[in-house]
């Protein structure tokens, strides 16, 4: 098939050219490009390495006779983690998870909804953009002492801060997703008589989904940061992992402190893995 001379071609718009792909703060590839272990050998090596590091630290601390208040031995940390799980860690993990989930659920749903609405109204979008930037960049932990004054010592103020931290993150990424309009795909749906809602449900939403998932992931990580930070600066009466950090450090109980750090790290990784799997399932068509 011979080609058409290019001077005749240059003005033809490509209707389904997706030039606006991945312009959000974080690209979808950040979610799915991480290599995952496949073979037994790889998994074995990873576990072996972790065990090796664990005992290496243990050995160094024993040989150098490092005092516990400088750095506790890994075995001590594990001992308290397992032994005191039911009193010192489990219940506080549960408080942190609850606070986080409540704040994130509120923030993410409002953020998603606003993104969906606002991207349909270009004027409104321009007007509110500066406020969104402020909200994205503002460390919401800073508001908690103020909210405490108004709302008392429950988890309420932290929940609000978490919502304020994760919501704008979800929104800004989702908006990037919803802005990817593909005229040809919308035309396709319209040619079958699709309603506005069907176009949203069947075209706009799936097109936006990879960026929405990115937004949820980043929002969740910001939310966790804010939860732990909030508990740390203004611990609620119900406790939480952040407040435990403060409690252990003020009493110089460093094995407890490090055990709490391990729990927080595990929580963060769990959140990452959950969204990684969601991204793999629902957004892998994009890569």
């Amino acid at each position, binding site marked *: 098939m011979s080609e058409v001379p290019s001077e005749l071609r240059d003005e033809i718009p490509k*209707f389904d050219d997706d030039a606006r792909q991945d312009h959000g703060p974080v690209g979808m590839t950040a979610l799915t490009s991480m290599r995952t272990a496949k073979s037994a050998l790889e998994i074995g090596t990873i576990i072996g390495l972790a065990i090796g590091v664990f005992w290496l630290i243990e050995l160094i601390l024993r040989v150098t006779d490092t005092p516990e208040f400088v750095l506790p031995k890994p075995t001590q940390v594990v001992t308290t983690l397992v032994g005191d799980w039911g009193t010192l860690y489990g219940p506080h993990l549960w408080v942190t998870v609850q606070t986080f989930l409540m704040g994130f659920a509120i923030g993410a749903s409002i953020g998603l909804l606003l993104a969906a609405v606002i991207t349909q109204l270009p004027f409104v979008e321009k007007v509110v953009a500066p406020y969104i930037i402020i909200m994205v960049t503002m460390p919401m932990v800073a508001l908690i002492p103020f909210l405490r004054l108004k709302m008392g010592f429950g988890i309420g103020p932290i929940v609000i801060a978490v919502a304020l931290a994760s919501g704008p993150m979800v929104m800004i990424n989702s908006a990037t997703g919803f802005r990817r309009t593909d005229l040809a*795909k919308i035309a396709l749906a319209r*040619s*079958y*008589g699709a309603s506005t809602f*069907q176009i949203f449900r069947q075209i706009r939403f799936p097109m936006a989904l990879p960026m929405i998932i990115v937004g949820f992931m980043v929002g969740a990580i910001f939310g966790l940061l804010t939860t732990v930070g909030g508990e740390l600066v203004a611990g609620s009466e119900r406790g939480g992992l952040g407040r435990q950090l403060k409690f252990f450090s003020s009493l110089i109980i460093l094995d407890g402190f490090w055990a709490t750090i391990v729990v927080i790290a595990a929580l963060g990784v769990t959140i990452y893995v959950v969204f990684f799997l969601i991204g793999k399932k629902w957004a892998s068509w994009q890569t």
Partner: protein
Amino acid sequence: MSTGLAATGSSTGGEPLGDQAKIRCDQATKVYETQTGQLVALDHFSLDIAAGELVTILGPSGCGKTTLLWSMSGLHGLTDGQVLIDGTAVSGPRPDTVGMVFQEANLLPWRNLRKNIDFAFEIRKKRKNKERIEHLLEQTGLAGFTKAFPRELSGGMQQRASIVRALAQDPEILLMDEPFSALDAFTRDEMNRLLLKLWEESGQTIVFVTHNISEAIFLADRVVVMTARPGRLAHIYNIDLPRPRNIDMTFEPHFIELIQDVKRVVETGGHAIEVE
């Protein structure tokens, strides 16, 4: 203007068909507002197409063929003039009558091949015609790929999938925008034969846009040649080759003459059309 031995032609909208016309373009004009000013994509284009007719449209790239099909399908409005289908002015898509095969396959990347075909049924809230779908998949050589996602299919397979999606709806009018452009010559012949077979069985009205002169003649009752931008009607050829047609006809001197004849008109009226 020269006309071929067996082809009669005209440079107006053909014989006016009156109320008989399945599709009537009446002074259809489309002007795009662009950053560099107004762009006339379609200029007083008039054409009557009879029910059951297979009309192919030839024209250089950018002459307004896609614009014309989108106007017929009601996907966008006209600046001036109108398109009538079954005697009423088109003001929006008519999914119960008109099916569209888009330029470039336009599959939804998050749906696998089968779900892409189902998409049209879902939107229209129609029960699937399973037998027809299976038959079409079989005929287009896609039967083994129903679970594959668009990114896993070749360009030609994607195009075939988009044709199956449109044909599965069995619309009265089928508008096809360069549906076979990404296919190799063999598959293209194959698809042309399939299209003719389905068309002969169904009696659909088909408007088929192509850059390929040989394909345009092989398929058509009439070949409509458009001028380079702004898109105007340059010439209409009545193709009187007997039906059913077969690929061997394309090697006969008569057919070659037709190609040369059309090519000549295209070169004066429009240009940059390929000849196989």
